[in-house]
């Protein structure tokens, strides 16, 4: 049942029954099949709002364990792309696949989140009336139905996981503080911690260092770098210094399509990218 020729991080993402279901895999929506090394495929995706083409035949792939940065001028379609991936916006045409088999255009936001895609919003969004620890507890993976919520008790393992997340996000000393009282940067971290609590396979981060101090930005860069390999990440960011500190591959979006892709140095040297950023 195990698939010996796959690298280890792929094998952990491949459900144990993946080999048996062969031709029926497209009917099974719970397992993630990344046997071709890609976790996310966008193929020819178009989205229009009242005649405005927010995404114009966008095609993009993210590899397993990759940390991809997406940059682009305002209105390039970065947030719309995240909306399409997370089920918030339905594309007019094109394919959006999570792994080989899961068609994301056919699922709703909460289902997509449970399948393993976490999303951080541009504006930090946490449950302000709850303590930091409660925020993390609510985000933990598990049964998220109404009945389960009535009888819910945190297990010892989950308490340990929360403690671990508090360490990772440097919020251990604030675990009992109301999330609404945290600083802006701490809220950003808490939100990242909540994403991690979901055990996502793919993390989408919309401007994770907006409003952070330099020191906080640096720590965030460390955190994100430590996540790659175990998770796949897509980071949308304007802060070029930050992008430079974390990026392996950078995708430049403009007018709803991919303009350039490569290392940061490569895309920065690209004539078309310079043109888009500096205007004509």
């Amino acid at each position: 049942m195990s698939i010996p020729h796959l690298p280890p991080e792929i094998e952990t993402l491949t459900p144990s029954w993946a080999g048996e279901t062969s031709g029926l895999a497209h009917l099974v929506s719970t397992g993630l099949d990344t046997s071709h090394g890609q976790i996310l495929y966008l193929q020819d995706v178009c989205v229009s709002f009242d005649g405005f083409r927010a995404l114009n035949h966008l095609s993009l792939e993210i590899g397993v364990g990759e940390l991809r940065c997406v940059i682009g001028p305002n209105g390039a379609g970065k947030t719309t792309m995240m909306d399409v991936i997370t089920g918030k916006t339905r594309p007019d045409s094109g394919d959006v696949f999570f792994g080989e088999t899961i068609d994301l255009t056919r699922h709703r936001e909460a289902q997509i989140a449970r399948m393993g895609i976490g999303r951080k919003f541009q504006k930090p969004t946490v449950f302000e009336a709850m303590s930091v620890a409660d925020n993390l507890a609510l985000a933990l993976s598990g049964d998220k139905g109404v009945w389960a919520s009535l009888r819910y008790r945190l297990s010892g393992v989950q308490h340990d996981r929360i403690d671990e997340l508090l360490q990772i996000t440097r919020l251990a000393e604030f675990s009992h503080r109301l999330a609404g009282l945290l600083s802006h940067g701490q809220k950003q971290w808490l939100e990242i911690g909540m994403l991690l609590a979901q055990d996502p396979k793919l993390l989408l981060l919309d401007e994770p260092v907006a409003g952070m101090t330099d020191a906080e930005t640096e720590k965030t860069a460390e955190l994100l770098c430590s996540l790659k390999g175990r998770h796949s990440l897509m980071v949308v960011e304007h802060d070029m210094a930050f992008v430079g500190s974390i990026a392996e591959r950078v995708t430049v979006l403009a007018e709803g399509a991919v303009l350039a892709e490569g290392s940061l140095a490569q895309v920065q040297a690209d004539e078309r990218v310079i043109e888009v950023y500096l205007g004509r």
Partner: protein
Amino acid sequence: MHQPLTLRLMAQLGPALTRVMVVLLLMLALALPLSHVYVAPDSAWYVSAYTLTLLGKIVCFAVLALALDLVWGYTGLLSLGHGLFFALGGYAIGMYLMRGIGREGNYQSALPDFMVFLDWHTLPWFWWGSDSLAWVLLLVVAVPGLLALVFGFLAFRSRIKGVYFSIITQALTYAAMLLFFRNETGFGGNNGFTDFKRIAGYAIAAPETRAVLFVLSVLLLAGSLAGSLWLVNSRFGRILTAVRDAENRLMFCGYDPVRFKLAIWVLSAMLAGLAGALYVPQVGIINPGEMSPANSIEVAIWVALGGRGTLLGPILGAFVVNGAKSWFTVAFPEYWLFFLGFLFIAATLLLPRGLMGLVRRGEDKTS
């Protein structure tokens, strides 16, 4: 921010003191009806039928306020149509009470008087089973519950939120009121149901019956408060406040907000129906006026004045506003609405977190 208040309040008072207070309140709740039944009417300790009915009515209103607090205070869904669910519960029990009149009505018919007046010869189909108390008790929760389920499903699935949701609930209760005003609807038109004679075989105006209805109302209030406390402190309750504060975040955490909203919305409607079912036999009348939008808005005022998302606050608000109302409408009947409006403006400006906010003021400074 509001959620653990009640518990913290209890913790502050100390468990012993809390227990003493609960016991005292329950003793008072028992002493009033006992005095109504056993104390001689000329005694200073006698509780009149008027007083007992007034208090029983307010206890039912307090349950309604509690129901609204669950959806508004905790989940952020401001319903301006909760009076509808309350009235539907009242109408359900009213059908039973109308059947209980038997042949003692003006027309000496087995049918309720208004049906004879309309020249109807048989009961409409939806009156089936209305002579059975067990059946109408089922209707008391099932009718508001089902209506809330259908309405809520459509509204929440379409992601109708905020003020739009409030306006639609308002329109819903208004439409229902117009429907119930029609004689052909089969619920007594603008007169509604009244002139009840007996409930479960007992004379409805007997002191003992009043006493039992009062005690049942108090038990409903105590039970729903205990249940709500448990609910809002469970993970389910956390998720409700998450719906209120950051629904998008919740959705991207993998929870389906529609289900949670629907669950609390239906539960709240059923609780309102139960409150209405105890209200009607005590006040002796139900008519479409109970469904008027103004009534539902008043419920929101009780909750806002007492303090949203505190459970105890809305109960307090229901008592304060209705207590003031019963005094005001006797002393200065023409000024009551001005006073109510003033109360609402004052509460909004001076007590944004309601009366319970006063209790909490000290805590905030320390934390």
